[in-house]
């Protein structure tokens, strides 16, 4: 028997048809005024229809956040928590947490980037997620391609999971009229790949993704030079390095280590410049953003063109896993300074295992 949480953001995606960028916060009222209709019910019904396994107990919030859809099917289910008529992102966070505490093995959520962020806040990587796309904004790679794929993830779920990213609009950039995605964190999803494994399938790796990340960390550590300070970017691949060192790194911020000790936590541009000034020898370890391949210029703006100019391409270490970086045609940089971007252009190694690298071109 597996326990499956099902969490629906009933208002996700409503803004799309009426030309809004989302239904987060006050935008929902506006969407209603413009005559928007709920679209999530249809989405979730499609998924539930395709779930064939029987050994399931669903854990659902009341009414429009879950119960309303599941009750039309013959699945065993239990209602968790309470909601008011109008739901907010606080409800999503609270209920995701309650479903987790109730012992869910996996959580299906229906919504967009905003919903993904709320779910991320509540469950992190504690249980795998199945993201059914239904939002206006869907930058995040956590979403499945189709309701069909979501159902397959449930029908065939094993213990093989891969990481996906949660991205959402960068609100600072948006106020300046730029539409950019910002990285908010990482979640895990069931790996569908094995469903399609053939006799002549690519032999990309011998190990699980989790194992591979450890090997990346070990390789980086074995090649660390004590003379250097290492500035560490966000993400779990980078954090594996500090985990191995038993150093407590921020997941989303920039940190710095020297001789295996943390010398800066969640540092900004000014603090980084100070470190560069003081220690002279500095390297940056960064992971590209999945999907678009940005190494600098998106996600962690603290690492500015000034920092990059001081550190240089030869002192930039890029780490990732093959499932993420193999999907990219190019890596990208957009630091705001064309000359700096140019100096980072051309081929670069991305470490994807122990002494295992893939060569990609950096476009600017």
């Amino acid at each position, binding site marked *: 028997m597996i326990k499956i949480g099902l969490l629906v953001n009933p208002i996700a995606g409503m803004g799309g048809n009426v030309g809004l960028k989302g239904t987060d916060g006050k935008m929902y009222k506006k969407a209603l005024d413009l005559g928007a209709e709920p679209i999530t019910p249809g989405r979730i019904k499609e998924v539930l229809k395709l779930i064939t396994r029987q050994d399931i107990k669903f854990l659902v919030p009341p009414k429009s956040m879950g119960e309303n859809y599941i009750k039309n099917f013959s699945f065993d289910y239990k209602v968790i928590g309470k909601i008011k008529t109008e739901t907010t992102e606080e409800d999503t966070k609270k209920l995701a947490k309650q479903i987790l505490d109730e012992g869910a093995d996996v959580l299906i959520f229906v919504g967009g980037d905003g919903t993904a962020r709320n779910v991320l806040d509540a469950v992190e990587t504690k249980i795998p997620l199945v993201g059914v796309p239904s939002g206006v904004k869907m930058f995040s790679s956590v979403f499945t*391609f*189709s309701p*069909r*794929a979501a159902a*397959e993830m449930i029908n065939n779920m094993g213990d093989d999971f891969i990481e996906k990213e949660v991205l959402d609009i960068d609100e600072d950039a948006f106020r300046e009229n730029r539409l950019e995605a910002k990285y908010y964190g990482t979640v895990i999803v069931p790996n*569908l*790949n094995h*469903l*399609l494994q*053939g*006799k*002549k*399938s*690519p*032999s*990309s790796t*011998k190990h699980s993704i989790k194992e591979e990340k450890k090997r990346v960390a070990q390789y980086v550590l074995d090649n660390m030079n004590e003379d250097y300070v290492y500035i560490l970017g966000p993400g779990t691949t980078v954090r594996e390095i500090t985990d191995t060192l038993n150093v407590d790194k921020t997941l989303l911020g920039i940190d710095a280590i020297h001789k295996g000790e943390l010398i800066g936590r969640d540092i900004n541009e000014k603090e980084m410049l100070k470190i560069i000034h003081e220690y002279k020898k500095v390297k940056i370890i960064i992971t590209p953003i999945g999907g678009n391949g940005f190494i600098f210029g998106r996600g962690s703006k603290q690492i500015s063109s000034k920092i990059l100019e001081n550190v240089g391409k030869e002192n930039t270490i890029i780490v990732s896993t*093959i*499932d993420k970086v*193999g*999907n*990219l*045609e*190019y890596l990208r940089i957009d630091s705001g300074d064309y000359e700096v971007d140019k100096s980072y252009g*051309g*081929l670069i*190694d991305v470490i*994807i*295992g*122990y*002494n*295992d*690298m*893939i*060569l*990609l*071109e950096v476009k600017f």
Partner: protein
Amino acid sequence: MIDLRSNENPYKPLDKVTNSICENMNSMNRYLSAKELDTLKEKASEYSGAEKNRIVFGPGTDFLIERVLIKNFQNKNLYLLNPCFYKSVGTALDLGMGLRRIQIVPPNFHILWDNLHIEKNIVLIDSPNNPTGKYLVEANQIQKLLEKDNIVIVDEAGYEFGEKTMIDLVDKYKNLMIVRSLDKSFGLAGLKVGYCICGDELLKAFGNNISINRASWSASLETLNHSEYSDECVSKIKEERKYLMDELKELDFKVYESNANYILIESDIPQLALELKDRGILIEDLSYSWLKNHYRVSIGKREDNKALINELHIIKKEEA
């Protein structure tokens, strides 16, 4: 299930070939002798134009590649293209070799070999390349790599479908190996028979060991004796390739020209491989190891290819 993901020859081997295995059954208590193996090498030499003494037979191309890695891995990295379908990659990692994978990207999949500055390493290139079906390295590039003291392994398993070869270079370069296969156009995938043509230095990786068995030997000898079978398969597969490509283009798929018995296609139909699997057809989904929405389709018999096109018509209709 129709399997269009394994790049196999869809046509049955000749009766003469299967019978030859049966006829040899009575001698299965005997090891294959060097003399017997020699007759096969002679045949392969005649067929390929390579010098007999440079030819080594083994159970599959991965085996032959692994031998060279095991003998030469020290202080070397293995350069290969991504995506990569070699089981020998696992061996390279076990040996503690560094792996350097070169990402190939559409639309041309062009590799800037000169920018890679590869020296004193091992380079493994499939030619034509799997999954693109394209030739991604020219003879002059190979020569440059060889002159920089690299060991170069050119995998020509799909040689018969495009007929471009680097065999002519083997006499001149001791660090070059060409790998061929009887698994494809000669239809012996179930026996896994590979052979290689080695430069002087790489020949040392093999010694005098006999690595293939009597069943593989007899079938190989017989199929090489009737190389018109291979020619026929190749011409039928090329015809089918054209049929499939035309139909797929008609259906608005992005289709890449190919010199192999498979084609690379691109489609934004969500989860296409999964969708087809439910309908009894297997194609290779490259979304997980390489680029999203890219698939490799092996060329099947007309009825298989037709079935694929039919299902795609239905899927497209349901999409709309």
